[in-house]
């Protein structure tokens, strides 16, 4: 009698065999040779990637091209140029131009203009949000939040346009030249999965420190989505529109500027929205290399564990993020209306209103100084309130919370961590290879195994496995929490809307913000890190579950209903299987979000790759930072390739593409 093994099971057989054989495996097959086990100060790995990168950095620093200037001279003069731009925006927003006797834009003008613009874009709700956001910044500026916010805004208003232009140009070239697209696409993939901290060091080496370096780091992080969306936008233009342009006799330049870019407007504006959100996500991270503003303030307060004050600053960041997000979305969604003829105030009512408002405040400023300066005696600080909450939690919940934390750590996390780090690396690479081969043939096998091998060869295998453990635990909990929420939310229209709104709002929070409440509850530990990841990374799985369930074709659900299915039967027998490919994609996104958050959580003390990155940051070790960053990126890309391949296969099998 032969036992019939179902086909998918064969994929894990080699892996299981290697696990069983672990006791007899040679040492090099269990832990990659030359891996860092404890202190990772001078680790080369099997292949000395770190040395190579450092040698390259040294070359670019020292070698004089044409005997005249080094690469670093070039980059440094670039950052000087950025400094000039920063001087201008900072002058406008908060410092004024003393040389010309011109002050900064008064707070009331920003509040008013934000409100008027919001009204123009989407009515009174957005007006209230925009005006309210700036009013909040002014009202709660006891600790100088207004000035800090203006510094942050001025940095964003330099980095966002630069990132936009770079993304736009790269996107256009990639849309026109297939060869360039083939190169650009993987570069964007790596850039987007690289932890921010890993290239901060390199930015600091070549561009120095301070706000100008912060701008550069932000640009590097923010341009990829714009490049992608530009490419997508141009490629998605209906071929008929391009043909119409050709038949009108457009030259290539006319085609680009008069047809393609305007027709791709919605995608381009979404790209701008993405850029602004990425810039805000970098607000805190860029302050590691000395960018001033809200992020810097938040960081120092977090380091001093002044949770209340940090929260106050954090809320300001969140307000700015929500306002900028909704505004840029509104711009993206705004469709032009037909032109009304008549006098100026009828044709451009909102522009007239804005000008009128500026004129009125200008006159008023002659009467009262409070127009230029928010009355100090009216400003409020909420940090005492937040500190009170923190104290209350510490006082009343310290016992139960620490019991929960310790139990979670001892009985759940530590065993899993032990199990995952116990697995021989040969077994991991075999498993990845088998799955890759099954899902996507030898190409996928080769790609994913290269990624895994890079991690093994780099010398940071053990740390990488700890990172993987944190991400996998969080992923499992996210799935357990997120999928049921998604199912619940997809049941009715109002629950869907509600959940989507909550997700939208949470997603605009810069990632560092998530550390505040978890540190408040669990102090500094793996548990805090994992909870921060769970809160942050559950968003995509909820979103994708809702999307998958709601997008099951209506007639299929009707067919199920007329077959006499109960709600439960329809859910489990029809909708869940149909939504499955989307849910896999959701898991993929959750994993990516998780990896990002793990890196940031290293800031509150975990012993995985992120700790090594922070160490590299301290010792200014550019090569180490980049190589560890690539390790993280390759963990993400391996999972991404496999999960996307799986989802595509399922979709194809269901005929959903």
């Amino acid at each position, binding site marked *: 009698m032969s036992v019939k093994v179902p086909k998918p099971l064969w994929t894990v057989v080699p892996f299981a065999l290697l696990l069983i054989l672990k006791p007899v495996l040679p040492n090099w097959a269990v832990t990659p040779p030359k891996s860092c086990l404890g202190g990772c100060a001078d680790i080369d790995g099997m292949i000395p990637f770190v040395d190579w990168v450092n040698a390259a950095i040294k070359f670019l620093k020292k070698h004089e091209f044409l005997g005249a200037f080094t690469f670093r001279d070039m980059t440094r003069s670039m950052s000087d140029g950025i400094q000039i731009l920063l001087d201008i925006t900072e002058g406008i927003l908060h410092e004024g131009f003393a040389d010309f006797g011109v002050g900064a834009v008064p707070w009331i003008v920003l509040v008013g203009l934000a409100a008027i613009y919001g009204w123009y874009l989407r009515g009174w709700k957005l007006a209230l949000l925009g005006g309210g956001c700036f009013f909040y910044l002014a009202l709660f500026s006891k600790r100088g939040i207004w000035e800090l916010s203006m510094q942050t805004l001025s940095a964003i208003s330099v980095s966002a346009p630069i990132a936009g232009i770079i993304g736009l140009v790269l996107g256009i070239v990639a849309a026109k030249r297939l060869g360039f697209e083939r190169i650009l696409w993987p570069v964007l993939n790596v850039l987007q999965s690289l932890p921010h901290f890993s290239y901060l060091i390199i930015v600091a080496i070549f561009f120095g420190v301070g706000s100008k370096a912060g701008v550069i780091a932000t640009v590097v992080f923010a341009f990829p989505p714009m490049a992608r969306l530009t490419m997508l936008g141009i490629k998605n233009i*209906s071929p*008929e*529109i391009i*043909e*119409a342009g*050709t*038949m*009108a*006799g*457009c*030259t290539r330049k*006319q085609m680009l500027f*008069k*047809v393609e870019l*305007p*027709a791709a*407007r919605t995608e381009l504006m979404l790209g701008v929205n993405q850029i602004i959100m990425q810039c805000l996500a970098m607000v805190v991270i860029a302050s590691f290399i000395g960018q001033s503003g809200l992020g810097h303030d938040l960081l120092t307060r977090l380091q001093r564990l002044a949770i209340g004050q940090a929260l106050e600053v954090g809320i300001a960041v969140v307000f700015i993020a929500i306002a900028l997000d909704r505004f840029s979305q509104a711009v993206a969604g705004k*469709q*032009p*209306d*037909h*032109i009304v*003829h008549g006098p100026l105030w009828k044709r451009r009512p909102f522009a007239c209103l804005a000008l009128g408002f500026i004129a009125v405040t200008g006159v008023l400023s002659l009467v009262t100084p409070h127009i230029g300066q928010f009355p100090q005696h009216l400003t409020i600080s909420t940090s005492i309130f937040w500190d009170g909450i923190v104290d209350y939690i510490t006082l009343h919940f310290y016992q139960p919370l620490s019991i929960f934390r310790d139990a979670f750590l001892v009985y759940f996390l530590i065993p899993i961590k032990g199990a995952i780090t116990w697995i021989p690396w040969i077994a991991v690479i075999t498993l990845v290879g088998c799955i890759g081969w099954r899902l996507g043939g030898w190409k996928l096998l080769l790609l994913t195994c290269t990624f895994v091998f890079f991690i093994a060869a780099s010398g940071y295998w053990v740390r990488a496995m700890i990172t993987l453990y944190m991400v996998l635990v969080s992923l499992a909990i996210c799935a357990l929490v997120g999928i049921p929420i998604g199912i619940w939310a997809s049941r009715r229209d109002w629950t869907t809307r509600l959940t989507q709104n909550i997700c939208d709002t949470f997603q605009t929070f810069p990632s560092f913000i998530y550390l505040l409440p978890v540190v408040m509850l669990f102090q500094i530990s793996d548990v805090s890190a994992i909870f921060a990841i769970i809160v942050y990374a559950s968003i995509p799985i909820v979103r994708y579950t809702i999307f998958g369930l709601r997008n099951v074709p209506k007639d299929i659900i009707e067919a199920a209903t007329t077959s006499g299915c109960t709600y439960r039967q329809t859910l489990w027998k029809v909708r869940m299987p149909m939504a499955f490919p989307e849910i896999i994609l959701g898991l993929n996104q959750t994993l990516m979000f998780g990896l990002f958050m793990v890196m940031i959580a290293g800031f509150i003390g975990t012993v995985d790759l992120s700790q090594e990155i922070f160490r590299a940051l301290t010792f200014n070790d550019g090569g180490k930072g980049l190589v560890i960053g690539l390790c993280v990126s390759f963990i993400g890309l391996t999972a991404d390739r496999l999960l996307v391949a799986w989802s595509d296969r399922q979709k194809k099998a269901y005929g959903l593409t």
Partner: protein
Amino acid sequence: MSKKVKISCRNVWKLYGSNPREFFDRHQGDPGEDAIRSEGYIPAVRHATFDVEEGEILVIMGLSGSGKSTLVRCLTRLIEPTSGKVEFDGIDLLGATDQELIDIRRHKMGMVFQHFALLPHRTVIQNIAFPLEVQGIDRETRDRKAREIIEIVGLHGRDDYYPRELSGGQQQRVGIGRSLAVEPDIWFLDEPFSALDPLIRKEMQDEFIRLQSMLNKTIVFITHDFDEAIKLADRIAIMYEGMIVQLGTAEQLITNPATDYVAEFTRDIPRAKLLSVGSIMEPTGEDVHPDLTVSQDDNVSKIASKVLSQDRDVRVVNAEDETVGILRRQHLVEVLFQD
């Protein structure tokens, strides 16, 4: 025929596949069905040869995938044909440089698209003036011209609306207006009314006839709707799997279908409206019924009630009033009830 040939299309091929030109040369410019299939090429257009005469409406008609859209794009060089020759006013279109092509398109060609292909960020007047704008014509002149066209296509008062604010029919009026802005010599319409609902479609067809009576353009019109083809065409080309299986007037297609496919296609068409008396009469020299006559050029449906109200056959005469044949009631009934 003495009319001037506007477009001459000679043995045009369009193959899709890995290396169509090499494949094509290897088969001496005439690959057979088997070779095409076995090497995995897809023939979109095969040896298309025809002329479009000045002032005529040539309708290219076929089901989706028959290659009609590809063919019209070969004529405008929106698609590069694999081989063949297209002459436009005696100019070799396939040999034209990019700049020459831009000039030809700017001044001599207009095209209307199935899904309108309006630029969403431009108002009606800006859309219509677009071809003039890319020529570098100054704003005042092109706005004046565009306003004239807005009147012609019946969009008065909608000058400053955006496409999304218009109905489908109105959007296609803008598309038609844009294609007419440069006063083209030849007008290509690629299924212009297919995306519209039936009532609007009929309205736009009438509008098209009205416009053509004013403008008298040379037209290549693509459709998958045989009724539309009959209504508008001077001549119809029927395409099947990339080949033009028959080219002729509607009456020729019905009375003398070249293949079973054409016969199948034309079977359910109300013949009475298309056929002339001459095509269904029995030729004869005798004088049978001197009292009742019909002209051989008359439409069958036009004389039907006159003939059927009598209970006998009628005499058919030509323009000189000479007897040329006899129209049997039996034949007339068969044509009218199509069995």
